[in-house]
């Protein structure tokens, strides 16, 4: 290693050769608290994995509802403990499978859901009162939630028995992932309508998962990741509190989503810092009085951006380290990437190996035997403080720009992300950042995909369009049209849109019809050119 080059964490925090007791503050105990006690640095719960391992939640979905239902049954048979639904892009963007823009994309990166019937078939034979289900859905989150509630209703399951998480963090879609439909302001209103609706009727359900993950995967640093997530959290919480909804009535069900990338100790320290920061924010900014409002729970998505197409089996090792960091950071649920994701949707074999990675760490490695085993490490504690400090500075910078909505609308955060991504790409290209198999220890052979890749079903899109047509032939178009019109008119007021969307779902309105009613009120957002 070049001795003249400063050693830093991935986010640029200087790292010294040696840490000693001088590097941890005298008031360390109060900065940590006990596990399950404010400020929750050591974990959200007292006994953590001694009591129950994290939820192993592999993201999956493709083709039609029936295709995905089969994959879910497979994953549950393999010991997965919850489901995580991937939707195709038309579903995420409020387009029915018959829409011309959906032509090539139906069922491609996730399952196609056009109607309540699709949702019922997706969970056919899977008891919704016994499963926790995660939905990666944002712009159309109110509609997907409504379909899910009707599917549960038809299984005879009460809303209050439903557990799971709706991603529903629309602000981060303007930074990364980009499945926005409406402009930022009405988008925040819709997200908050969902949170408000769930806070009274779905006590076991997380109506939003506030995420720094996607901005991170798009290129931002670990400290920016925390700042972006909390800036978004502030935007939603401020909006809800301004509506007159008490913070303590919704805050206990807020959940978070962070990345786990390659700088092992920084990833562990990052989520420990996140819990402390949230506790402080909830207490000082919102005057939280319920301890559950200050307890940050998070889902850790391991990283696709750090995986390589070269020597793809190396990705198994990368994912194992990332998963271990998430566990040592105290995650409530984890997804491990498939090693073949630089090539395709993960194959069944690759998904199983990702799940086995979690199971081996959970059951064989012994790291779950004691809570927060890295606590007191001179380096980890010092890094936890440094990350909290830096992330708070960035959060203040965003606040000075008018908060998440303004900084996002102005494209500031997008610029930071792109600049960071470019720096990283250049460092990999010029070799200053080591990437095994890419710029060091390179094999001569050409890049080759591992094993058998997932083969998308060429007939899935046509089958889905047929399903939609036959559904439409059976419903009452008049009642659907009336219900959809009502969604549009409610959207024009300050009333919560959820009850009207639920009514529309019950009478067979499609996802695209409901999304169009909202488009009619809010318009569509077009992204500004980045340079």
């Amino acid at each position, binding site marked *: 290693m070049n001795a003249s080059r400063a050693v830093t964490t991935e986010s640029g925090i200087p790292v010294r050769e040696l840490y000693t007791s001088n590097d941890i503050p005298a008031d360390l105990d109060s900065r940590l608290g006990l596990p399950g006690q404010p400020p929750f640095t050591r974990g959200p719960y007292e006994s953590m994995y001694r009591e129950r391992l994290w939820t192993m939640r592999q993201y999956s979905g493709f083709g039609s509802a029936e295709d995905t239902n089969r994959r879910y049954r497979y994953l549950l048979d393999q010991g997965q403990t919850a489901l995580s639904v991937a939707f195709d*892009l*038309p579903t*995420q*963007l409020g*387009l029915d499978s018959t829409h011309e*823009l*959906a*032509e*090539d*994309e139906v069922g*491609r*990166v996730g399952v196609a859901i056009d109607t309540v019937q699709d949702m019922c078939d997706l969970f056919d034979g899977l008891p919704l009162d016994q499963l926790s289900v995660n939905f990666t859905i944002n712009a159309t989150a109110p509609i997907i939630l409504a379909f899910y509630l009707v599917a549960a209703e038809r299984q005879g399951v009460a809303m209050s028995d439903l557990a799971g998480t709706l991603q529903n963090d629309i602000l981060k*879609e303007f930074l*990364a*992932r*980009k*499945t926005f439909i409406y402009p930022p302001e009405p988008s925040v209103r819709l997200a908050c309508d969902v949170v408000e609706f769930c806070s009274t009727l779905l006590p076991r359900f997380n109506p939003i998962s506030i995420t720094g993950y996607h901005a991170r*995967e*798009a*290129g931002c640093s670990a400290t920016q990741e925390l700042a972006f997530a909390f800036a978004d959290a502030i935007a939603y919480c401020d909006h809800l509190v301004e509506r007159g909804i008490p913070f303590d009535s919704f805050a206990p069900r807020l959940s978070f989503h962070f990345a786990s990338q390659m700088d092992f100790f920084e990833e562990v320290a990052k989520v420990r810092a996140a819990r402390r920061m949230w506790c402080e924010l909830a207490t000082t900014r919102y005057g939280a009085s319920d301890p559950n409002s200050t307890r940050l729970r998070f889902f850790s998505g391991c990283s696709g*951006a750090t995986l*390589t*197409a*070269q020597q793809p089996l190396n990705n198994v090792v990368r994912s194992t380290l990332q998963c271990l960091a998430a566990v040592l950071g105290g995650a409530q649920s984890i997804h491990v990437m498939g090693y073949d*994701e*630089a*090539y*395709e*949707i993960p194959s069944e074999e690759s998904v199983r190996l990702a799940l086995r990675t979690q199971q081996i760490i959970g059951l064989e490695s012994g790291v779950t035997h004691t809570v927060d085993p890295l606590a007191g490490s001179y380096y980890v504690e010092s890094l936890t403080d440094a990350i909290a400090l830096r992330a708070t500075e960035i959060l203040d910078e965003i606040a000075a720009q008018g908060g998440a909505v303004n900084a996002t609308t102005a494209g500031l955060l997008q610029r930071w*992300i*792109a600049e960071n*991504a*470019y720096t990283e*790409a*250049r460092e*990999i*290209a010029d070799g200053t950042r080591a990437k095994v198999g*890419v710029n060091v220890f390179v094999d001569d052979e*050409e*890049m*080759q*995909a591992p094993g058998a*890749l997932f083969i*998308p079903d060429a007939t899935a899109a046509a089958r889905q369009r047929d399903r939609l047509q036959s559904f439409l032939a059976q419903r009452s178009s008049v009642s659907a049209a009336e219900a959809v019109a009502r969604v549009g008119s409610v959207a024009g007021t300050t009333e919560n849109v959820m009850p009207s969307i639920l009514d529309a779902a019950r009478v067979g309105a499609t996802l695209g019809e409901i999304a169009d009613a909202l488009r009619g009120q809010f318009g569509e957002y*077009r*992204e500004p*050119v*980045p*340079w």
Partner: protein
Amino acid sequence: MPALVEPRIPRVLLAKPGLDGHDRGVKVVGMALRDAGIEVIYLGLRQSVGSILSAAQQEDVDVIGLSVLSGVHLAVTRRLLSERDTLGLADIPVVVGGTIPPADADLLREMGAAAVFPVGIDLQEMVASVKELAAESRGVDR
């Protein structure tokens, strides 16, 4: 006698066709091309084949670059190449980047993509290849 003309700065059009929003790669590529002295026109997300081709024509670009990470690269590229030829723009080379399995990269080249840059491609190699294509394309009288 040939007139002395200032060599024109090469122009590249980048776009994301289809509905995919993963734009980390296309932005990095755009910045790398820009730093290599190329004029980059980025159309952004959710572009139709028609909007890409009409922008290419209007902006008189030397290369069209598509970025697709949602797996629809074959269908979109096939449509774009065929409409490009119909419009008489067959001399504008089209390159495709994204999550592209090796077998699909071969298919893309067979259908007429001038170059394919799957995930993992070396940044400098990609820049050099686009520059070369732009220079060749420049030589064509349009």
